[in-house]
């Protein structure tokens, strides 16, 4: 420990640093390096990069899909389709007349509308 150095000194304390280094340094760096590199070899970096790029692409696709779905849901909520529109689209002009008429239809008209191709 360097007595000239105050605790607030901006310079590293060589004595304290050396003592701490000795206290914290683990044995056999070479074995540790070999262990890490063996682990890396089991999961090559190229594979991780590919997986990472896949993940990025997947997130982008999911975001676009969510935007499209949100747009469709919002459009459906703000412009609800009436029963009349559905019948018009599905069954043609006779069914439309049947629905919007204020008088109850004759049974033959109903049957004719159903039988209409």
């Amino acid at each position: 420990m360097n007595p000239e150095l105050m605790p607030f000194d901006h310079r590293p304390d060589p004595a304290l640093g050396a003592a701490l280094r000795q206290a914290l340094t683990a044995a056999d760096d070479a074995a540790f390096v070999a262990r890490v590199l063996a682990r890396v070899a089991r999961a090559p970096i190229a594979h991780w990069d590919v997986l990472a790029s896949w993940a990025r692409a997947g997130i982008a696709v999911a975001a676009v899909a969510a935007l499209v779905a949100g747009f469709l849901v919002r459009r459906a909520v703000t412009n609800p389709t009436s029963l009349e529109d559905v019948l018009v689209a599905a069954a043609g002009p006779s069914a439309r007349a049947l629905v919007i008429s204020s008088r109850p239809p004759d049974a033959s008209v109903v049957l004719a509308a159903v039988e209409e191709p």
Partner: protein
Amino acid sequence: MASDPQPPGEGARIAAETDGELVARTLAGEQAAFGILVERYAASVRRVARAVLGDPDDADDAAQDALLAALVKLRQYDPRRPFGPWLMRIAANAATDRRRRRRVRRTEPLDRNVVAGGTLPDAETDRRVLGQRLRDALSQLPERRRVAVVLFDVEGYSHAEIGRVLGIPEGTVRSEVFHARRALRSLLADWREDGSG
């Protein structure tokens, strides 16, 4: 450290390629380049992890996690900045994560030679006793303080770099180093007054 991205005393013995060159080669698919980076920084990463975790086995697991995480995140590294602080940040985070997952820390068994006082030469025994006391003293400090003093006094990083590692202002780093030094120096002084050193 800003002008010299390699940890003091350890980079010199390894190839003189810069960290940035090694990162570029690693990203180009050269696993050997990453091997050089691991060799260059293994000791520092292990020390930082041990400062956080105490237990040497836990520390090595965390250090390995950190180096693998660095490899996976390597594209995020900005080569205009020094590599060491970027890696130390990953190391400190990996060690903290591991400590949180394992709240009950195993205590490191005392060296039998130290306990028995026995077969080792006096100087070696003194060295081990001091090491044990320093580790004990470190473990009493708040985690951020431990990492700050190790990065400053052992690894040689600047206050500004440590601030980026820990995500705190430079002034706070100075304060953390100050408090850590005061505690550790007092321990060293007591140890010497006891006639142990």
